[in-house]
């Protein structure tokens, strides 16, 4: 959690996506390969990008809560031309501070793993079927943190849609072991008291492995 402590030392509260992903990378989570470009460096795109197409470009701002609501995510960019066009569009969004450019991940089953310091119970974790519709379906469950893998499995099974994870209608089952590891890890992170809220949303789950596609962290100042 060195990276979290560094961010706190800098007096940050809401952390930008690439910073959140650095924290996660340090904690051993799998995140897409990517590069963060500040607004005034955007001219040098695509020369400074050494990752492979297709790419995704996302607006970065401490003031924007929902990127999809401001149309701040451009998917499936196939070449330098498309990238450049996407970036200039994203920079026109109000409050844009920079752009995060990442390799596109393969589609998987999307879930949310989150944590919060709850004002009644202290650190708790949340699991649910993710993506942008998580707040629509509200198919989520909570548990006290920190927790072991057994409780993490209980948490996953509490969610109605968790049948999807076992391989629904001919799809292969996803890597439950890695999902449980992620839940346990988030439960440990939220229990340090350094983080107020954390969202890994969505996490794409695959038959083998998983990757955190988007993440939010807000820091806790006790």
């Amino acid at each position, binding site marked *: 959690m060195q990276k979290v402590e560094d961010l706190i030392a800098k007096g940050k509260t809401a952390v930008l996506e690439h910073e959140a992903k650095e924290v996660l990378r340090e904690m051993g989570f799998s995140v897409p390969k990517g590069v963060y470009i500040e607004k005034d460096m955007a001219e040098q795109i695509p020369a400074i990008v050494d990752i492979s197409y297709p790419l995704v470009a996302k607006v970065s701002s401490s003031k924007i809560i929902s990127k999809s609501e401001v149309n701040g995510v451009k998917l499936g960019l196939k070449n330098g031309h498309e990238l450049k066009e996407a970036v200039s569009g994203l920079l026109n969004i109000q409050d844009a501070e920079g752009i995060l450019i990442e390799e596109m991940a393969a589609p998987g089953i999307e879930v949310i793993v989150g944590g*919060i310091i709850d004002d009644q*119970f202290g650190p708790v974790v949340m699991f649910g079927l993710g993506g942008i519709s998580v707040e629509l379906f509200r198919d989520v469950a909570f548990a006290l943190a920190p927790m072991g893998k057994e409780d993490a499995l209980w948490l996953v099974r509490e969610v109605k849609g968790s049948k999807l994870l076992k391989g629904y209608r001919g799809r292969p089952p996803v890597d439950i072991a890695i999902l449980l590891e992620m839940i346990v890890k988030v439960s440990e992170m939220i229990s340090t008291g350094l983080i107020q809220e*954390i969202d890994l*949303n969505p996490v794409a789950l695959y038959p083998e492995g998983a990757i955190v596609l988007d993440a939010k962290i807000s820091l806790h100042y006790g």
Partner: protein
Amino acid sequence: MGKEASINQIDLLFNPGSIALIGASHTEKKLSGAILKNLLRFRGKVYPVNPKYKKIMGLKAYSSLSELPEPVDLTIIIRPAHEILKILKEHERKAKCTIIVSSGFAEIGEYKLQDEIKSIARDTGIRILGPNCMGVYNPYHKLDTFFLSRERLKRLKKGNMAVVSQSGAILSCLFDALGTANIGISKAVNYGNAVDIDESDLYDYFIRDEYSDIVISYIESLSNGRKFVEKAKELSEKKAFLLLKSGKGSSGQAAAYSHTGRLAGRYEVFHSILRQFGIKEAMGFDDLVDTAKAISYQKTSMGNRVLIITNGGGSGVLASDECIRQGLVVAKLPKNKIEKLGKIFPKFYTISNPFDLTAQVKDEDYIASLNELKDDFDGFLIIALTGVLGVTERLGKMMKNLKAGIGKPIVFHIAHGGVSRKLTAILEKAGIPVYPSPERAVKVLKALLT
């Protein structure tokens, strides 16, 4: 103060040797007079405190706590909120425990006054119940601190269920409902604003209280979530415990930045955590009372396979629908049993699940089918509609004899009216709970099957 000392102090709340009522009045028309009248039944010492009187309801009155001939175990304070701090300060070395009945604190926004009470509790070591509460009822100790007259609120008989309610109004409604359900109680407590003694302290007490085998609890807000989880979990492991939480509509966390924060409504988190630790939750008032009745009559047991025996087709189908909603399995009868039962019963009986004995039913048919199928299922719902002549009070007596041999949850649905009242009374005396609708009976069966 050591932990033991503090538990013993809570015991003084339920089993005091002596009580002072501060603010006693001579007329039942006042709440403080109603309390005194109820205290007259108490076998220990009762000291009314009111400087205006020499004698109240036949008892010698005292002008203040310091005038009493001896320190008391428990005081009950019913004076205006602004006088409470001064009265509490007089408690040092004069009383060990107090119930503050008065309102006018955090519930109307007077947080500062309530915080000052809290610090007095901490500094003096006096344990405080309330403020804004009715206190306690202990039928085994003839202790009754309620400000409701016995004429208006019938008291419950002795039993083995403890009732812990944050709200006085809900506690009084529970008294009516539990009385109708023929349930006796070990102790009842209304703890109001929980400035000192909170739900967790009370659970801790009831974990150890040998008079209480079952605990039901109504909660509006938690004092300390982690402490609550610890004690509620321990209580659930040691005794039958059931709670009802109100305030289900509140939204997510105040300054939510994340999806998690916006989804983490106070009730949603509470509900999940209860399930995480196997703490049973009632989903509403009726569910609380229905389930309380069932767990006070019968032990829970494992399994989810339910047999429905009915004499009304429609009722059986409604029960079957509710089983599906509750995740219970209305499993098929074993083939060999269908053959065997086909030889015993008339052709027009539906030998299936639900098992329909039709309007031609006789009391013995219920017993015969139960005897034949008792090993094939985990729980039994029996529907006995008393509009037909074949269902009589004898069924109650026969069920009483059969119950021990089955040793698994059995609940009845009987529609109200006529013969059914007597049959219901006989069944409930035998520890078989009866409900007026198929759905309510199934919900309870679900609570009995874990």
